[in-house]
């Protein structure tokens, strides 16, 4: 009996050591896998957020562009282009482009995007509110409330309130505050050399701690009144025209998200 018992004990010990080895390996595997998972989550979150932010700023620019004739109408005083009307049109257009309602953001959306999209919408609305006096001047045609000036102000207001930086940039900026940094200049040159594509260029720099997302913007027919031909002739705002053609790279919306700062 004692011999048998001794034999069983050896077997048990062997068994136990195998179980321990299995548990250890499982633990190591689980921990390794989960650590990869934890590091991926903020990256994906930042990348998704950057793309939505660029889309939202671009939608705001589009709404200003669509209302340009109304804004520049010298025969009308109160244009009715209020911050609320602007917001309504932005929400509709954003839904059309992304299938996502800005007023009821879906639960699966990254928390960073849930925090920042309303902030950018609010900043954009404030720019339209600030411009009400200019927009509603009667007897004055061109007021310089255009997609570019709207975008600059909205991006600046948003960036001042957030750790995320958003900016309009181009290789030959009219507004020197939109001058590209070294990274943006490099990406813009790459974009200018390749066929038009709406896909953003997304990269991690500074030892993977900072996300840079650059979403290209291309000239449409409407833009060419100021940016088209003949090159060098002053446009309505007093800047020399760029001589651009429809489909040329106009610039980009650049988003910069430092992940560690969160």
């Amino acid at each position: 009996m004692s011999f048998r018992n001794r034999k069983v004990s050896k077997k048990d010990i062997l068994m136990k050591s195998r179980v321990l080895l299995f548990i250890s390996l499982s633990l190591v595997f689980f921990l390794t896998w989960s650590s990869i998972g934890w590091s991926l989550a903020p990256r994906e979150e930042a990348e998704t957020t950057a793309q939505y932010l660029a889309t939202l700023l671009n939608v705001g620019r589009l709404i200003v562009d669509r209302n340009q004739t109304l804004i520049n109408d010298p025969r009308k005083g109160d244009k009715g282009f209020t911050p609320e009307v602007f917001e309504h049109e932005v929400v509709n257009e954003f839904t059309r482009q992304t299938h996502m309602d800005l007023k009821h953001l879906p639960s699966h959306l990254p928390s960073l995007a849930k925090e920042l999209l309303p902030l950018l919408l609010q900043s954009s609305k404030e720019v339209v509110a600030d411009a009400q006096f200019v927009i509603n001047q009667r007897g004055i045609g061109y007021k310089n409330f255009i997609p570019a000036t709207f975008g600059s102000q909205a991006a600046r207001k948003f960036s001042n309130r957030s750790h995320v930086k958003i900016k309009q940039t181009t290789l030959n900026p009219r507004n020197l505050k939109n001058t590209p940094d070294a990274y943006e200049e490099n990406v813009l040159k790459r974009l200018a050399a390749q066929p038009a594509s709406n896909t953003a260029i997304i990269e991690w720099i500074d030892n993977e701690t900072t996300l840079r997302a650059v979403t290209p913007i291309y000239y449409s027919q409407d833009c060419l009144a100021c940016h088209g031909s003949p090159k060098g002739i002053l446009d309505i705002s007093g800047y020399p025209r760029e001589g651009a053609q429809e489909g040329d790279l106009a610039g980009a919306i650049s988003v910069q998200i430092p992940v560690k700062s969160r």
Partner: protein
Amino acid sequence: MALYYRSSILNSMIIGGLIINVGSILRGAWYGLKEYGSQGILVFLVVLGFFLQGCGLVFDAVELVQPLARDEMSAICSRGQLRVGISVEPFRPFVFPAVFTDEGVRVTGLDVELIREVVDALTTYCDGQKPIVPTLHLTRFRDLFIELNEGHLDLFVSSIGGNIPGARPAGLWYSIPYFQNGGIGAMIRTPEVAEKIRTQFQKQPGSPDTLVAVQAGLSGLTVAAQRGRTSQLYVEANLKKIRLLLCDSLPAAIEMSDPPIDVIVSTHAILDYVTKHVWPDWRLLTRNDGTPLVLTQESFSVVTVEEHRRLQWFLNNLLYRLEESGRLEQMRRRWLEEDYAPTRRAAAEGLPFEVSKVPEHYDQGQCRFATGR
């Protein structure tokens, strides 16, 4: 500024001394009268009431002895702000319509550049420790005078002519001119009007008499002038045989179609700019040799209230220095002769303004026939 601080300290000492003396007298009276019970307290309060009536006089006396501590220059220095009125009706190139820029809403023009010069000089005057910030109050032209009189503004600059009879309301002071190469001119839509004037000039033997030619040439025509501006004063005083329309702004006159306007009378430099850059359908009224027909000379001044002597001397001395150094001439050339885009200048050098002081929906207004002519 050192004088300002010294006088502040002096004033504080005087007022402090007065308070201590009056306080000790009152304390003595209180303890004396308290002994007579409630009747004594009542007497004390009645006597105190009589004394309080004179408090304003005490402060006035202190102001008289040491006025420097409360003068308008010291007030501007301590506030760190210069409250400037500027007309919401555009008088290009002196004041352009407000535009939206990358920096926000801005106004620009020769008058705005002059304001920058004034605040730069004020910053130096106030020791330069903190820059004096111009707070622009964009308001309707007619309200500028009221706002200044009510003390809401330190001064206003809006291409205001100071040498036309009847142009200076009582209680306001006009600086030496910062712009004197102008005058009152006219613009027309059809060449027939110019022909009528030219015919009148041709009828004159010897040296031409502009007033006689204009009076005869414009007779029976519909002439518009901006309400409250010097052009209205000129037309009312000199052109009796016209149909006079008074308009709230120049854009209102341009838009007026019923009745159609034959002539718009306004500042020559403004008409020169707008016929070239804004309303090319209109042309300047000229003499037979093609030179612009200026109806009378006019010079522009900075306006402040009559009592602000120190500010007045400061402005006159500054304007004289700017003229002497050629800076004013450079500014005039920059805005009147150079080819430029006002929007771009607004973005680079325009000034923000108080949105709260601006009519919610600026309307260019309308035109009405002048009554009582």
